[in-house]
């Protein structure tokens, strides 16, 4: 765990990043570190990535130095605006195809989701100094209570889960760093370990499941 994050506030031992995020804010973070985010966070998942890359279209919100959340929330429209009901991360790996290009084109610095991302994204995180973090999957009500306000929405034509919801968040987390700016990849590392252990487990198990008529 790194103990020194420049330009981040350190309240009650919480490492808190604030937007806009600069490369030097995240340079000393490493995979496995736990951080929190205060500032602007926007949801962007399959359709949003597709529109940015395939249609070469940018939302009406500058993502440079900002953070995105792979998530499709439940939102209630109220007379005074939108209310965040439930918002948890979605599987980041679905965006692997486009994320590297997305980081390059938008200048986004922090990507939050669940599960890991692949080699292409890790390379882009290293090259363009960005992070991928995971929020505990499924903990969607906790996450919703860390959203202070829904400031706006773009691309509502995608429908509720896919729209680009612009939020103000406070101490959003815990966020576990899964790809750091050095290109290290926590989930890939874990997966290599899981694969070795899988072979060991199968070796032990297979002799006991040989059911046959003989």
């Amino acid at each position, binding site marked *: 765990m790194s103990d020194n994050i420049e330009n981040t506030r350190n309240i009650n031992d919480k490492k808190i990043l604030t937007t806009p995020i600069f490369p030097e804010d995240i340079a000393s973070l490493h995979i*496995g570190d*736990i951080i929190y985010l205060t500032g602007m966070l926007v949801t962007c998942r399959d359709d949003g990535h597709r529109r940015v890359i395939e249609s070469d279209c940018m939302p009406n919100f500058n993502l440079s130095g900002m953070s995105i959340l792979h*998530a*499709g*929330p*439940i939102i*209630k429209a109220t007379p005074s605006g939108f209310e965040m*009901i*439930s*918002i*948890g991360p*979605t*599987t*980041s*790996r679905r965006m692997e195809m486009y994320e590297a290009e997305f980081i390059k084109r938008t200048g986004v610095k922090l990507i939050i989701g*669940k*599960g*890991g991302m692949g080699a292409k994204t890790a390379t882009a995180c290293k090259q363009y100094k960005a992070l991928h973090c*995971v929020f*505990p*999957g*499924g*903990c*969607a*009500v*906790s996450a*919703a*209570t860390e959203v202070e306000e829904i400031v706006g929405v773009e691309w509502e034509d*995608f*429908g*509720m*889960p*896919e729209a680009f919801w612009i939020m103000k968040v406070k101490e959003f987390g*815990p966020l*576990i760093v899964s790809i750091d700016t050095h290109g290290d990849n*926590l*989930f890939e590392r*874990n*997966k290599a*370990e*899981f*694969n070795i*252990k*899988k072979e*060991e*487990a*199968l070796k*032990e*198990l*297979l002799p*006991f*499941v*040989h*059911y*046959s008529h003989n």
Partner: protein
Amino acid sequence: MAHVKNEITKSKLKTPKEQITDILSDLLKVTAIALPDDVFESLKKMQACEDSELSKELYSCIFDNLDKAEKLKRPLCQDTGVLQFFIKAGVRFPYLALLGDAIKDATQNATSSVPLRHNVVESFDERNTGNNIGTLAPWCEWEIIDGDGLEIDVYLAGGGCTLPGRSKVLMPLEGYEGVVKFVFDTIVEWGVNACPPLVVGVGIGTCATTASILSKKAILRKIGSSNPNPKAADMERRMKIGLDNIGIGPLGLKGKQSVQCVNIEYAAHHPATLGVGVTVGCWATRRGSINIKNDLSYEITSHKNKIN
């Protein structure tokens, strides 16, 4: 005045279809907001086994979230799935003809009242319908049973835990070893994205279809139950130990365990084929079970600790 009174009494008298709709809306609400008793208990036990700081932090996030969901009466996970209903319909249940419509109405009601996420994208148009209704959505599996009541399971599965699902037809000589390998490969390749600790349903049968339907039925079986066939039960137990030894941990971030259970359901199979299916449930495996009698009295059997 008399006229008005009459109107009020009349509006209070709900038709059987409206009553069933209300009952199912209730079931959807409790299922979206709280975990079924067996899943809650299983997570509590798993939490006690983990000792790393990160695992402890993650389990405390999970339970904190469950707490908030119940207090605020909100869906515990934002992904409330494309609703799936598994209906065991008594042949003498008097309102069978209304049931399909009541299920649709309940889905629509719960979508706006709970609320549930808009999760139905009409195929080919690729447009979200905005009310969780679409072609064959919600999905219903019907089974006819003796009796005059209904037993319904509703299953809310998000995209993350749906993605790993797959089935394959093995050659019989690949044997049960092939079945086990297929499941282990699937879990290691995709499991980390499905919010572990996972509920693993395995189906064995003749073809891809039977195996996958059975793997879904396996998910609907309670955690802690075993297949009545001692060989299948032994394989369930050994597969759980094997998967736990991989140490996927809560949310895939490593730990002492990987899965809440492995449940196997099977059918006899063709001599030349061995179909295997795997369906995965996440830590937030949300299934609700209800028994409805012919007089429309009912009992939600999955959430006894939550209903007060």
